[in-house]
């Protein structure tokens, strides 16, 4: 019986008839070869996307992704699934817009339905100053050719008539809407890229934790792992959350702190919220998954941590924001909360750059914006590794920008990562 490999109406129908027995593994359980042209450390969304684009766009197929646990076990598997390109600063806008465009074509490209769903991202404002700040942002987006609409209170009300308009401590005055924003089924992004990369010959090596780097005369020659030494001409780090820890093995100190961001999901309910809504007067944003759960989050806990869990004060803070915005959900129940470790950079923007070690490349500092960046991050990191020069839209993401004073600080919080 032939294996069904490509997903099509035909194969789905056929497998339905024969009890789903013809599907093979989405990706091979590869064992490490002695060496590769490129080793990507980190089997999360960014690492897998990097491997996929290295193979697909840059013709490098002798590539391995090494992952300490199971692929997708980092933040690609524990985020709130939002994609958008509503950025303010020129250093960020083209990058995130490229990511948005890649999302829009992702499923056809990967032959995998990651449920990219463009149901709109609405940022609410509650004061004239906030409105003008969003106008500045929306205008910057429009000048970059990106969709953005500034809504007044009545336009917001017609989209979401049941938010708290009449008894709010900080009344809703309007919102900035990006209709092309939305959500993506997060785990499926990791699996889709893994499957795509695997089909192009990339080895995905799970349960292989990197324990060190081997150098020869200042040039990288491979990585030590719990599954043995793996030689490599080039090594790319995509281990956001643990960047400082891994980079330290290569003698690198990074302008990054690790912080926990909690996320939340409610019990499944019938459709309530179509798109993504962010509350401008508290720490709260929400969308609803296709399964019916309200998926929401807020601020990071605010202290350095490597424990994937947070504490009660932030739980309360987030839920207070939720009730302030949507008093209808008081009797809906919180089902689960969890934490992910964020690479919080010193200006709130990421880093995709070479390192002082030849052949060692770094991708990290995603703060809590990493998920939406996955495709562009993968593509730009692949470009950097393959060509040894930055991709056009990621030129600003330099490692030395803090030293030279070229920060990309969307929120204006300075070198205090827990405020970004």
């Amino acid at each position, binding site marked *: 019986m032939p294996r069904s490999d490509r997903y099509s109406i035909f194969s789905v129908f056929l497998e339905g008839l024969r009890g789903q027995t013809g599907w093979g593994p989405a990706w091979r359980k590869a064992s490490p070869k002695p060496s590769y042209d490129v080793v990507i450390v980190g089997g999360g969304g960014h690492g897998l996307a990097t491997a996929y684009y290295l193979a697909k766009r840059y013709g490098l197929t002798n590539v391995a992704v090494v992952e300490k646990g199971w692929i997708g076990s980092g933040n690609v598997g524990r985020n709130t699934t939002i994609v958008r390109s509503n950025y303010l600063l020129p250093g960020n806008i083209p990058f995130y817009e490229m990511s948005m465009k890649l999302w829009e074509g992702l499923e056809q490209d990967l032959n995998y*339905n990651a449920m990219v769903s463009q149901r709109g991202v609405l940022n609410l404002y509650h004061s004239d100053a906030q409105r003008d700040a969003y106008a500045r942002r929306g*205008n910057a987006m429009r000048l970059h050719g990106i969709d953005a609409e500034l809504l007044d209170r009545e336009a917001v009300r017609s989209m979401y008539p049941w938010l708290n308009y009449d008894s709010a401590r900080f009344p809703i005055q309007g919102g900035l809407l990006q209709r092309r924003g939305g959500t993506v089924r997060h785990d499926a992004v990791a699996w889709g890229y893994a499957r795509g990369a695997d089909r192009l010959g990339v080895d995905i090596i799970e349960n292989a934790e990197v324990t060190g780097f081997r150098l020869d005369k200042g040039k990288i020659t491979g990585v030590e792992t719990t599954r043995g030494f793996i030689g490599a001409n080039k090594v790319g780090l995509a281990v956001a959350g643990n960047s400082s820890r891994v980079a330290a093995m290569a003698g690198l100190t990074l302008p990054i702190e690790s912080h926990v961001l909690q996320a939340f999901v409610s019990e499944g309910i019938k459709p309530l919220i179509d798109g993504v809504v962010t509350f401008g007067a508290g720490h709260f944003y929400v969308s609803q998954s*296709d399964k019916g759960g309200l998926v929401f989050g807020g601020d990071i806990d605010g202290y350095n941590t490597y424990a994937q869990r947070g504490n009660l004060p932030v739980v309360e803070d987030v839920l207070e924001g939720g009730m302030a915005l949507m008093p209808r959900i008081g*009797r809906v*129940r919180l089902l689960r909360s969890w934490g992910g470790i964020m690479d919080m950079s010193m200006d709130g923007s990421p880093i995709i750059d070479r390192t002082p070690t030849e052949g060692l490349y770094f991708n990290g500092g995603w703060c809590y914006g990493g998920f939406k960046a996955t495709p562009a991050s993968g593509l730009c990191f692949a470009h950097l590794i393959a060509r040894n020069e930055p991709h056009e839209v990621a030129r600003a993401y330099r490692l030395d920008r803090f030293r030279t004073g070229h920060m990309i600080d969307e929120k204006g919080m300075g070198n205090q990562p827990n405020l970004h």
Partner: protein
Amino acid sequence: MIQSSQTSRLKNRGLIDRSQPLDFTFDGVPYTGYAGDTLASALLANGVRLVGRSFKYHRPRGILTAGSEEPNALVELRSGARREPNTRATVAELFNGLEAKSQNRFPSLSLDLLAINGLVSPFLSAGFYYKTFMWPAAFWEKLYEPMIRRAAGLGRAAPEHDPDSYDKATAYCDVLVVGSGPSGLMAALSAARAGARVILADESFAFGGRLLSDARTVDGKSGADWVASVIAELKSFPGVQLMSRTTVFGAYDTGTFGAVERVADHVAIPAAGVPRQRLWRIVAKHSIIAQGAGERPIVFGNNDRPGVMLASAVRTYINRFGVAPGETAVVFSNNDEGASTIEDLVSAGVTVAGLVDTRTSLPPAIKSLARKHGIRVFEGAVVADALGGSRVTGARIIASYGAPQTVACNLIAVSGGFNPNLQVTTHQGSRPQWRDDLAAFVPGALPKGMAVSGSAKGTYGLASCLKEGAQAGAAAAAAGGFVATAAAIPAADDEPTEVSAFWHVESSKHKAFVDQQNDVTAADVRLAEREGFQSVEHLKRYTTLGMATDQGKTSNVNGLAMLAALTGKTIPATGVTAARPPYTPVAIGALAGEHRDKHFKPTRLTPSHDWAKERGAVFIETGLWLRAQYFPKPGETDWLTTVSREVTTVRNSVGVCDVSTLGKIEIHGTDAGKFLDRVYINMMSTLGVGKARYGMMLREDGIAMDDGTAARFADDRYFITTTTANAIKVLQHLEFCRQWVWPELDVQLFPVSDQWAQYSVAGPRARDLLAKIVDAPFDISNAAFPYMAVAELTVLGGIKARLYRLSFSGEMAYEIAVPARHGDLLMRTLMSKGEEFGVTPYGTEALGVMRIEKGHVAGPELNGTTTCADLGLGKMASTKKDFIGRILSQRPGLADPNRPRVVGFKPVDKSARLRGGAHFIAKDAEPVARNDLGFMTSVAFSPSLGHWVGLGFLAGAESRMGEILRAVDPVRNSDILVEVVSPVFYDGEGARLRV
């Protein structure tokens, strides 16, 4: 008609109160139950077996459990604004008038059209959606996804704002005991007797746990009677807090627990002033987790049919609620629970048509028990399939010997062994340990201060649970410094608890459900494994196993055991997914507490707020403050008219503005001047006593942080103001500098923001007005008290006050401060004494207009990314000293002279309106990003000039003075021409300040 028959209610059995009948409805049909019932037990008493429809295939579902782990019997409770989706009927306490509806069905529970999903289920395997719905791409948002979204979800959120209130509280104790079963009660008793402050929390409305469900005796009393005696003793200790209806849902760092108390969920509507629920933060020095163990089902064909029930639930319904959940039962077990179940069934008059045990050789005691009651025993056998549709009608039994046989029954009591309820022990990252002898995970390494006891630890026998609890309670009290001995162990037996691991009946051809709520079948687990989703986390995420509202309490272990069998690994090597808080789902309203609507955040009011309200002020939220935005006069219909009148009055006569919200800090000590020199970019140590100076602070990264004024009242006594927005941040920063950076300096900081009410009195007649209130002999003349002078004085006949000759408006102006309690009086006096000058109060809008006319930067310009040079204040920075931010402000990116600078803008067409947030483009250039020159930050209509004025950042500002640019604002469809001008629009020489 209303009085239904409760046909399944047992006579003289159960802990319900038959003297209190309660009426309720389910799907509109009226029924009656009793006080002490749950909705589930009352439905069962009335013979209702079909309660819900499943998530994906819409299969008929009944009641599987008697506790908070229920996956199937989820209903919408109450109606209207109080509608609660997904309420577990098994924990919903019955009350008079309770309304419940089944959910996720159309048009009705018995006829659900979406049950057609079951027919196409061969195509709806785990993860099918990842492989399809891609053609054509545009159909996803338009067709496929809306269809999926409509079908998904279970109950419906309430249609209106939640009308009930919620509350939060914090409790402290020496020992927190979670769970009031035999172990928990003994733990609480031992700790309480030692004198410890104890909190005993239980999720149920009755204490006792399994003692209420088992027909066992303790100390010769029935379980319930023994529980009552212990509770009575616990109540006698003043330091003991008994919390029923309270679920401890999460364990956090340093002994902090989250708990939710259902204060008024057992009544139709909370009484006035009573919250529906209360969030407790319990801070415990020691905790004892005694949450018992949950039974797991065995996975077999059609194991989701209404009438398949956990054996322990069957026993609970019989013993605690006096309900027979069926008339003819088959018991299917892999452990000794089967025997206890037989006894309870027989005693309840239920016919037991067979005991099916997977073990090939049953203990003799069980066999003789079965023989005694004439029950057929199937050793080494399984129930392969449940028969029937919306109700079980029989069991197909396959033994290792003989042909499959069908036994008629309408209840299948199933027991696959027990899982310790260890979720709370893992919330801080601890991983459970596998024990082969129990075929279960038990708690691993525990967080500091936490202990586990009884069934939650895998200790199942009743006597052992009692003993372990007593020891744990004594140990916790002793660790807290109390002299403690374990309470004497009451007489009880250990029941047999032998188990043989058995998870899944593979011989069935029918759908066999692992996760009943999410409709994850054994075939889905096989498919996931085949497709490489072989990590337990991948299995969960790919199939959604364990992601339903029960977080997999009845499904996770079965699922991973099946995965282990497929991959050939052991269960411990396969691992387990982590349980996350909350232990059971918690109402969002409870976690928010009182922080909603107007009470979402505190509201700060200035001392003269009431006066402003009387005066008809329109208020605006400024951070936590409510500030007067403007003061409309009768007949003024739009804000611009009012604001322009306020500005004009200030510019021509005098106005008063409440500026009490400014941050205010006293800085004392012999090194105060030195300290301020280091935190401001300009010199403050050279400031003369009796003088004030404008100052700017940077962050250490060289970016402007805040501006304000510093005044010197004595050599060692300064007073500074901060912006309203940064009052707290600046204090924190200064404390950092004082304590950590320069601890050697003799400096003290006193935050006095709330101590002073402060008012700006501005305009050509400001001095005339103030002259009327300052006490003699203070000389307020320009010569004696010039621009930037400060003084301590008294006003209004002896009220202590401070006067500052400062101006934000650009007019001759003062700020006058009095102790907060006199603010209201001062404001009223200024208004009455100013009548002859036509004084006006003015609000934040007029304040903003005048500061823009004067080109003063404020919040929109100090946006956290601008340097003092960007703000046009570069020359203020002293070159004679170090200060916070100096070094890093020299980085090339910040010192770049081509950075955008603040300049002024006015419209070429004087009637055109400027907009904050517009971007600047050269006049002839295309409006695209590469031509973006900057953006507008602040705009105002200037009544003084008769047109709009604006401030903004512009690249190459110096060379563009006088240039005409486009201010494009595509989000508001505006594109106008503006002229680049000096940011100071009014009185550029500052002549008006000094008169």
